[in-house]
């Protein structure tokens, strides 16, 4: 596994992640990666409904959200979270990577998309971008208050 410089918040605290996937195995894999990036797991959820509750409870810096899940799918959960919290930063993580899905997720407020199987180096670059850590990237978002480059 490659080494990565830690992605930190402006207050030098670890970035807090909410990991949403109906597969425990997939969540563990993602958690291993975010810990490798110096992050901290704020919460986990196995479906969209639980993800909304966990978002409200934990107020994570980043949500990593699967799409195909029971009860409520990821795209609907994104819509509901962003409606309540427009500042939410959500990255979709799914094996289903066709354009309609990606566009639907982005239209509902997701910031980015990464296709499974997830390569750590790809997720790392996407997280840097979404955290506003790569100002050279076209259209890079401005870092939110309380955060800056790691």
């Amino acid at each position, binding site marked *: 596994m490659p080494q990565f410089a830690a992605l930190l918040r402006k207050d030098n605290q670890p970035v807090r992640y909410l990991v949403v996937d*109906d*597969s*425990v*195995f*997939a969540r*563990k*894999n993602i958690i*291993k990666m975010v810990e490798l990036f110096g992050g901290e797991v704020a919460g986990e959820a196995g479906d969209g409904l639980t993800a909304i509750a966990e978002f409200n409870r934990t107020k994570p810096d980043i949500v990593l959200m699967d799409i*195909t*899940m*029971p009860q409520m799918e990821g795209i609907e959960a994104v819509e509901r979270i962003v409606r309540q919290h427009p500042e939410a930063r959500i990255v979709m993580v*799914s*094996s*289903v*990577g*066709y*354009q*309609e*899905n990606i566009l*639907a997720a982005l239209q509902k407020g997701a910031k980015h998309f990464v*296709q*499974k*199987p997830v*390569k750590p180096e790809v997720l790392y670059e996407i997280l840097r971008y979404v955290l506003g850590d790569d100002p050279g990237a076209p259209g890079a978002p401005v870092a939110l208050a309380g955060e800056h480059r790691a």
Partner: protein
Amino acid sequence: MRMDLIQPFINAADAVFAESLQGPTRIGDLSMEEGVYRRKGIAALIAIKGDIEGRIILDLAPEVASRVASVLTGSEVIDNDQIVRETVCELANMVIGNSVTLLNDQGYTFKVFPPEVHSSDEGLAGSADTEAMVLAIETSCGSIFLNIAMHHLARRRRERGLAPVTL
């Protein structure tokens, strides 16, 4: 047999196994399933609905599934059915997700359902309107079998030309 429908599954499975298991893969035997499918070991089933409807079963012998789980979790997995089943389901999820992505690029639209452990010893057989085949992919962990049974809803695609259908 519509190979244009089957090929994306073969390509996706090959790519996902090579990437996930970090080793070489080889497409092995491919056969049409004329009788009822018989499960070989630990299997996950994913249903798809849309322009093409059916189901895909990813099937691994127990010792192969344990080896795959060990590689994917980064630690040796012995006698842990829960982790092994989770691994097989997630592997199936990645293969099917990548397959439908490729098929979507060809203009087909789908709804993919979450994987479930396939515990029945038998599966859907091929029929007049259902393409069914079994494919073995050789990996560094052993053979992984894909059993694909599906039918192409040509009528739905024609209708969609008149009235768009959204996912």
